[in-house]
């Protein structure tokens, strides 16, 4: 595979990876978050939080992916970018790292949202949402 082919394949592969990271994080936290949100008294707010939750994990993962630019100081033109395979691999590594970083920040922010939800709902133990 030539460098241009590698660029195309690797770029779309990392984009898919970003989506799967975002959706994987959503899947991992979905059930406990849903149970936690049940403590919110306002039904409309509960529904809103449930709608925002997948977006709030998927979009940061994609934002991390697109935040890495191939046009660095050394490689300004397309021809220069595809000249060096090692440079392309390095950019892929940076993309994966950025996806992980952005997603970590998003998880922390959702932790703060969960904290506010719990404070708002005054933690009602009688609801007993059992999530394993």
């Amino acid at each position: 595979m030539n460098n241009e082919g590698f660029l195309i394949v690797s770029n779309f592969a990392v984009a898919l990876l970003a989506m799967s990271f975002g959706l994987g994080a959503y899947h991992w936290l979905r059930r406990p978050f849903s149970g936690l949100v049940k403590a919110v008294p306002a039904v409309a707010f509960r529904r809103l939080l449930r709608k925002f939750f997948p977006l709030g994990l998927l979009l940061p993962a994609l934002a991390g992916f697109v935040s890495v630019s191939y046009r660095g100081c050394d490689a300004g033109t397309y021809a220069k970018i595809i000249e060096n395979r090692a440079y392309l691999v390095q950019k892929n590594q940076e993309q994966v790292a950025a996806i992980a970083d952005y997603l970590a920040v998003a998880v922390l922010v959702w932790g703060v949202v969960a904290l506010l939800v719990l404070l708002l709902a005054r933690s009602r133990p009688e609801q007993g949402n059992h999530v394993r």
Partner: protein
Amino acid sequence: MNWYNLVGYGIQLVIALGVTLGVYAMLRPSLRELLAEVIRLPAATVFYLRSLLLLLFLVALGETVGDKWEVAADAAFMEYVWNVAHAAGQVFKNFLWTFILYLVQITILTAVLRRRHE
């Protein structure tokens, strides 16, 4: 990237993920106990435990994958060790920041909810 670097890269990844699981396993029982006692909502306890594991995993992955391997094929063994140690150091540093931010959340939660329960 030659195979020497790939092996080093793989070792670095395994160490980072191993440390992640080790740290989480160490913290989980007491954190679970605290959260169960303070929040009194099983779903919220599970959410905070899972988010901690996810955070540690993402931090470890971000640091190790983003690390540049620029060791020459004929480099001495210790140069590889230094490279792995450097990446591990970055992972530990970011773990520290993660713990600080996570613990701020848990402290606020504990302080406010405990006062309300009393």
